């Protein structure tokens, strides 16, 4: 599949020429039969949109820029934090506090001034997703949350753009190409995202800094293969990467005719026809900003902000304060008066606790604590409170002397 074919610019004559500087710069590509001058002109003609200038977006942007992709789109709303520098090579120490888009712009320009960068300093959301993606050939999913991943998938399917997909967790990653003609999409594999609180994210579980370098680079290779129409892209295959044992494995992913995103209407699929569709479930709550549900008179998880928690502690109120993070996190910073019960041990440890005493739970940012809170409710606890924003909010709003991580 040659991507440029979709833009009526497939004929060699209509591809942009390479000047003398570019011929020298890309000479190692020109020597490859699979690339050559025409291939390099295809790369120059290509437009690739990267969602996220973080762990995956960094190596992908750097390598695609170096490779000579003519137009790189980059979407990110975030600012550079010191905790990003361990893996996000688009950003330097001096960039901490700057917008990621500005920082990325400088770096990409330094890598290859021939690349035109279209920067979108905004969140990729349903109100702008189609408009942003429409003018690109390929999307590269480097987001860090389920809501944006499902949105990216559905936008790509609606517009018929292939999606070079990658994701990471701790020491493991996944990569694939979704949304290619006749290929499966992300929803064919995982139809719906997990509910809030069930799955920890990277900021809570950690990630080896080099890992996104590996996975984002694979995404960049797949994007180039699509541009050039060479090799066998990861269409219909999911690459599973496990770096502690250093095992790579691919498993087949089939296109699902009943898939709500890319399926066939005659088979009950293809029900997501625009991004306003509620079936899409793009709410940010799916990536960890949970709200308490209210179902009848059953006990529910109550929420408390860090500031409210500080006030309650100040008043000497009676409750158990439980920290469900890992010991390494506890060593960095903790709320005075708490005790450590890592999430995986909550169920067992709580067997001996008083089910009628209030338990207030916190973690780093509020995802694991919600999971623990739900486990306690399921175990018959009646008064369970979750600290919104976890120790991150506590550090920001109550005790700035604590170390951030």
């Amino acid at each position, binding site marked *: 599949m040659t991507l440029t074919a979709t833009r009526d610019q497939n004929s060699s004559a209509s591809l942009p020429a390479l000047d003398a500087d570019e011929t020298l710069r890309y000479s190692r590509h020109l020597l490859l039969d699979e690339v050559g001058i025409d291939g390099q002109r295809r790369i120059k003609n290509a437009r690739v949109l990267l969602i996220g200038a973080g762990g995956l977006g960094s190596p992908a942007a750097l390598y695609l820029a170096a490779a000579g992709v003519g137009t790189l789109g980059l979407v990110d709303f975030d600012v550079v934090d010191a905790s990003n520098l361990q893996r996000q090579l688009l950003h330097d120490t001096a960039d901490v506090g700057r917008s990621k888009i500005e920082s990325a712009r400088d770096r990409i320009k330094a890598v290859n001034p021939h690349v035109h960068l279209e920067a979108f300093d905004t969140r990729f959301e349903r109100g702008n997703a189609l408009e942003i993606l429409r003018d690109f050939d390929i999307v590269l999913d480097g987001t860090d949350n389920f809501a944006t991943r499902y949105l990216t998938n559905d936008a790509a399917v609606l517009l018929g753009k292939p999606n070079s997909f990658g994701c*990471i*967790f701790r020491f493991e990653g996944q990569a694939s190409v979704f949304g290619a003609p006749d290929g499966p999409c992300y929803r064919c594999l995982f139809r719906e995202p997990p509910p809030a609180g*069930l*799955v920890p994210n*990277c900021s809570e579980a950690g990630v080896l800094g080099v890992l996104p370098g590996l996975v984002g680079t694979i995404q960049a290779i797949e994007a180039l293969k699509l541009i050039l129409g060479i090799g066998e892209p990861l269409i219909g295959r999911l690459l599973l990467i496990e770096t502690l044992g250093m095992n790579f494995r691919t*498993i087949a992913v*089939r296109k699902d005719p009943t898939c709500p995103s890319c399926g066939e209407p005659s088979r009950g699929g293809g029900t997501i026809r625009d991004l306003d569709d509620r079936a899409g479930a793009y709410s940010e709550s799916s990536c960890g900003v949970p709200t308490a549900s209210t179902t009848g008179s059953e006990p529910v998880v109550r929420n408390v902000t860090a500031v409210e928690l500080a006030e309650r502690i100040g008043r000497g109120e009676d409750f158990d304060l439980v920290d469900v993070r890992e010991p390494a996190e506890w060593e960095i910073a903790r709320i005075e008066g708490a005790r450590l019960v890592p999430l995986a041990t909550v169920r067992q440890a709580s067997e001996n606790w008083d089910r009628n005493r209030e338990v207030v739970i916190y973690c780093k940012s509020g995802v694991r604590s919600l999971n623990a809170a739900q486990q306690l409710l399921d175990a018959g606890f009646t008064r369970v409170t979750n600290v919104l924003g976890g120790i991150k909010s506590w550090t920001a709003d109550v005790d700035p002397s604590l170390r951030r991580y």
Partner: protein
Amino acid sequence: MAITVTLPAVLARLADGNKEVSADGATVGEVVDAISTRYPSLSTRIRDEAGQPYPFVVYYLNDEDIRLGSGFDSSVSDGDDLTLVPAIAGG
């Protein structure tokens, strides 16, 4: 029948850190029951309250998606490999 269940890191942490566990059962569902009983923290992450697969965890029996077979009713044989692939979001 002894089946090898392969768990990625995100799930292995809930199974005492084991990336491979051996479990008995005649169907995928029975194997899932067995490991759920052994590792209670794992149970809520790999199947829903009704005991059915989640839409965000895919089971591969010897590299074949069980949704193409009989799901949790798919029968397993001695020495089969069951690999769990959960959706992960990090980037």
